[in-house]
């Protein structure tokens, strides 16, 4: 069939360009905000998700991972005695201060793990040997935080709350959600580089033995250990994400902007398709006189919406990519897996089809006498 939808769209190039601009605006805004939001959510639980523990034991009423509070190391030995616990390890996260080359200070999050078992260790080492942290004051920092920390290199000596430390290596993908760089070291070193008192831990990580379910071991631990909370990995991950998403409203703000993009895009596209339909109303009437059914007319309107969605999405994504490159240079990362990109295409399609509904309604109510008016 001669593509009236396509030809009509391209015939009025200015109108088409305006509609595309609207879709591109919506696609860029949705892509950036959803990408930032997902990265935001991923970062909020990045360590929880990467560490292979099935269960996390925390101080009572903890709000999220980043606000970890110390409790007695004794709980570790109690946990190890609970049936169904394959292993249990202490794990530390404490805020501290990094002395910058210019004399200033940068807040950091010191992460302490057991270098023998490597439970809780960084998972992607770019440079250096993890065994080095067994030695006193050897640390790993993430490549994403090097600029924040004054561009230290492997082998450099730095100062953390008055203690000397040496950069043993560089990690990748371990970027803290709150923005304070992660500094990985042994549990023993971490106690010295943070304000956590000796004999205390911040978390206990538990692996469930074969033959036991995570839920039953969690319940058993919760019954046995007093003064602490016990979470499955999934629960603690969601608790940390939920805090930043709902309690602080930061995630909601990002999602709201994405929604706003969708709404503004829908209005622009709807207005454009509606104006185009009104302008071509007589043509739709002529089509009816030629024998076109209402369904034929809907198909033309929907084809217009589809063409705009595909071109708008493709060009919008190119623009979004350019924005993301610039954002990455400024230290702002987005997380956009393939299924999310497909979802944004689905939303774009939905937006364009939704925007056509008013036009479809108008065509349904078309007065046949229109075609006879001069």
């Amino acid at each position, binding site marked *: *069939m*001669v593509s*009236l939808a396509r*030809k*009509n769209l*391209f*015939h009025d190039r200015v109108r088409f360009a305006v509609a595309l601009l609207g879709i591109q605006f919506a696609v860029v805004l949705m892509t950036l905000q959803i990408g930032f939001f997902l990265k935001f959510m991923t970062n909020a639980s990045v360590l929880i998700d990467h560490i292979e523990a099935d269960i996390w034991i925390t101080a009572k009423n903890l709000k999220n991972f980043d606000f970890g509070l110390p409790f007695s190391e004794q709980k570790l030995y109690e946990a190890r005695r609970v049936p169904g616990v394959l292993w249990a390890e202490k794990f530390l996260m404490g805020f501290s201060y990094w002395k910058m080359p210019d004399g200033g200070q940068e807040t950091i999050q010191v992460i302490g793990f057991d270098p023998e078992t490597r439970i809780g260790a960084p998972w992607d080492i770019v440079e250096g040997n993890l065994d080095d942290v067994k030695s006193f004051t050897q640390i790993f920092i993430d490549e994403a935080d090097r600029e924040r920390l004054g561009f230290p290199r492997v082998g450099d000596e730095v100062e953390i709350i008055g203690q000397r430390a040496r950069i043993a290596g560089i990690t990748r993908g371990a970027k803290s959600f709150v923005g304070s760089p992660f500094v990985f070291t042994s549990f023993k070193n971490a106690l010295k580089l943070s304000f956590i008192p000796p004999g205390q831990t911040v978390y206990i990580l538990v692996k469930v033995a074969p033959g036991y379910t995570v839920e039953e071991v969690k319940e058993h631990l919760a019954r046995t250990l007093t003064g602490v909370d016990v979470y499955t990995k999934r629960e603690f991950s969601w608790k940390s994400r939920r805090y930043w998403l709902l309690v602080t409203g930061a995630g909601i703000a990002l999602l709201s902007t994405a929604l706003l993009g969708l709404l503004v895009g829908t209005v622009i596209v709807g207005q454009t398709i509606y104006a185009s339909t009104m302008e071509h109303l*007589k*043509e739709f*009437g*002529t*089509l*009816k*006189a*030629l*024998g*076109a*059914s209402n369904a*034929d007319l809907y198909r033309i309107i929907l084809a217009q919406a589809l063409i705009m969605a595909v071109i708008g999405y493709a060009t919008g994504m190119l623009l979004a990519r350019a924005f993301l490159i610039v954002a990455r240079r400024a230290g702002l990362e987005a997380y956009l897996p393939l299924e999310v990109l497909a979802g944004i295409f689905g939303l774009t399609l939905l937006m364009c089809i939704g925007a056509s509904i008013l036009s479809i309604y108008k065509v349904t109510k078309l007065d*046949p*006498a229109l*075609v*006879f*008016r*001069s």
Partner: protein
Amino acid sequence: MSGPWLVLDRVSKVYGDGASAVVAVREVSLELQGGRFVLLMGPSGSGKTTLLMLMGCLLKPTRGRLFLFEHEVSALDERTLPFLRRRYIGFVFQTFNLFPALTALENVELALNLKGINGREAQRQALALLARVGLSERLHFLPRDLSGGEKQRVALARALAGDPPILLADEPTGMLDSRTGRQIVELLADLARTEGRLVFMVTHDQRVRDLADDVLFMEDGSIVARESADDLWGAVFRREGR
């Protein structure tokens, strides 16, 4: 089919209801058959266009019965009417109503597509139809690049797409100069006489009465007079060129 193709039996069309009701067509009865070129004349607002829309299955009568071949249009549901239009009727409009984004060839092809003829066959038929109206040299021109007469020829070729037995024309000469207008009307008359179609044309143009087989006069929604070329009066009209 030997009988009448289009039968109107006391057909009325009323717009609105209650005190604001307007009777556009009042109890019109007609029997029209193939091979005739019929003119419908009358003052503005007399109901000519409404009658044309009823005959073209674009409207359903408020009262009375309308038959198109064996189909009782007045009894059919709205979803069946497009089928009847595709099968039996071609429209020609005063303002041409061509699709501005499509070339002459594409305008005709689109009408063929709507009638289920696609691809190469649609192109072949569209080329033949445009040749039939003398526009083989203007196939790839957009409507804006065609003269008024050429646009109406494209519209005529489009109306002939799918070979409908009935052509309904609404003041097809209204936007044309008298010479071009007459050429178009001659073409319409020829389609009735040589191809056996029923061509029904609404017009104000007295100068083309001599080409018609029948002339109907409408006033206040009713057919108030009829002339036939077979009548004496019709012969006088033709001789005097009125």
